[in-house]
């Protein structure tokens, strides 16, 4: 089981690079969704089967793998944009930075001791690397939708870590966190719609009327 878990986590890391290195928004959304599905499957591999666990698996896949990609996909279609345009940080530099962050994540994770049952798994480095890639996209892209994708990547990174605790977290807290995420993305989707109507573009660098001189 351990090797399968690690393989899935490596796939997670590869999906980060796919998102970081592409300008196609639809592709990014699908990659993040795929990551969400992996996140849903993982707890089933690490923890023994219980009803609580089954609920978590279904919940994560439904929210991260299905509902959120649908919301964002809809927002993309409504705003009629397919690509990120002239990002602040180019795709090649982004990829290089992503690789550096991933390497650093492995170094940092070495320093943090794990509980014996999680020894030798890639959870912590995968979590930190995904989080950092999320930050990279949040800061490096112009389009509001790209920023939402960055936020989702960051959330996925946090969830990867949360999987270690999946057993211990009360179901209500899990459900609440997922619900908050879902509503958050929903609200962001609505705001994106308004941005595209107001500015007839989703370029957040145009959101600069409120700058401090």
């Amino acid at each position, binding site marked *: 089981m351990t090797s399968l878990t690690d393989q899935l986590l490596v796939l997670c890391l590869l999906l980060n690079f796919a998102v970081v290195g592409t300008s196609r928004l639809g592709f990014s959304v699908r990659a993040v969704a795929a990551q969400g599905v992996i996140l849903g499957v993982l707890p089933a591999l690490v923890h023994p089967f219980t009803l609580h666990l089954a609920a978590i698996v279904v919940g994560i896949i439904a929210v991260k793998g299905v509902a959120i990609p649908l919301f964002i996909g809809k927002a993309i279609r409504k705003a009629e944009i397919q690509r990120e345009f002239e990002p602040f940080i180019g795709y090649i530099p982004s990829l290089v930075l992503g690789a550096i962050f991933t390497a650093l994540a492995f170094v940092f994770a070495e*320093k*943090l*001791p*794990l*509980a014996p049952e999680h020894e030798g798994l890639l959870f912590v480095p995968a979590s930190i690397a995904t*989080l950092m890639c999320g930050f990279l996209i*949040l800061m490096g892209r112009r389009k*509001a939708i790209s*920023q939402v994708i960055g*936020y989702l990547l*960051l*959330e996925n990174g*946090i969830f990867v*870590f*949360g999987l*270690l*605790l999946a057993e*211990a*977290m*009360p179901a*209500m*807290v899990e459900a*609440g*966190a997922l*619900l*908050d995420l879902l*509503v*958050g993305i929903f*609200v*962001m989707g*609505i*705001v994106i719609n*308004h*941005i595209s109507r*107001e*500015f007839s573009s989703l370029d*957040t660098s145009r*959101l*600069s*009327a*409120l700058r*401090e001189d």
Partner: protein
Amino acid sequence: MLWAFVILPLLGAALAWGIPDNRKRTFVLPLFAVLHLVFSLYLVAETPPASPHGWFLLDALGKLNLLCNAVLFTVCAFYAVGYLNYRRKRNNRTLCTALLICLSAMTLVAISQHLGMLWIALEATTLTMAPLIYFNRNARSIEATWKYLLICSVGIAIALLGLFFLAYSTIVAKQEISLLLSALVRDAARLHAGWRHAAFIFLLVGFGSKMGLAPLHTWKPDAYGEAPGLVGALLAGGLVNCALLSLLRVYQVAAASTEGPLFREVLLGMGLLSMAFAAVFMARQSDFKRMLAYSSVEHVGIIAVALGLGRGALFGALLHMVNNALTKGVLFLSCGNIHRAYNSKSTQVVRGALRRTPWSGALFLAAFLAITGSPPFAPFVSEFSIVSSAFLQGSPWTGGIFLLFLAIIFIGMALTVIPVVLGEIPEDIAKTPYRDTIHTVLPPLVLMAAILVLGLWLPDPLQELIRQAAGLLGGER
């Protein structure tokens, strides 16, 4: 019992959503606000028993937070009726519903003893405020909403990671895993040091960005500047206090562990930095609502400094939490009135408010004096208590810098406020329908009276409550 308390405002929200008439709907707000306030007062007096698993409990800190939010919300709810009357063309269904959901979430923050639950409630307050900031539906407000939503969501997500780290430190230390506050405080010293350390940093950054501590405050001027006055009041009084309460929960755990001194030092540094940012940006503001945002940055800074000093300053910190929330209420509501009367927020246009809107102008001036720490208003008492405690504890440098910043900020704020209130009204000014009426003046006036009374006389029960709360933070009882 406690559950009913969280559900009550949600019922109000459902009712507000269901009422089709734009005018009648607004009356749901004061109705449920008063019900909630009465319920709060009852629960503060008669402490209800904890829920079965100990997830929900109203302790002294929670009570203080709850009282503050309930009073502020009630005032804002009455004000909302008058305010929305001026804006009848704008559909207020989302506003009324989201306000009541936010009240429910704020209540949940106050009673949560499970840090996971606390996090969910705090995130819910963030999300419900987003549509409120966008009430004016123009390009500037959408920009503010986007910044607010993104920065706060990311901040809160980081706090979640901090919570996960904290939970994991219990696993590594082979304790029973739990995010219950009582268990964490009890075992704080035995948690794994590395994970605990990382957890505190992430939690401080996460909740700090929600509170608007510098350098994580960048969303604040935009959101406060573009939101309607009553939403600004709730952001600066209610939401800031909710984020602060979350930070205080972490503070409780930190104080019980060996990391207390480090955690306090970081808070002290961030607090002074916030005051410095406020001092620099306050002076040259051409938008008086944005100026209030920097005042908010200043005051979370003051509270952070007091928390950083610890011990005797904790009483002042908690008292200041109450005073700041109430005074911000008056500032934002009177500011909202002046904004309506001039249809502008620019200090170029808005001059001589004392003659155009005498009541709002006077309230704005009084609240400015109060918030900058002039006697006899309540913030003077709390700020004085913090400064004197700084000197008593043998940190004269902190006390000195603190006083210096207060002086600079006073001058900076006065340079903006005095012309707005007392200057000459420009001649070519547009006519607006707004004039001060009892509906929009009485709520902030009541709040201002409370600030004056609290400055002259602190009732014994409140004093006792603050002492108990400071005791929870490891202060002198």
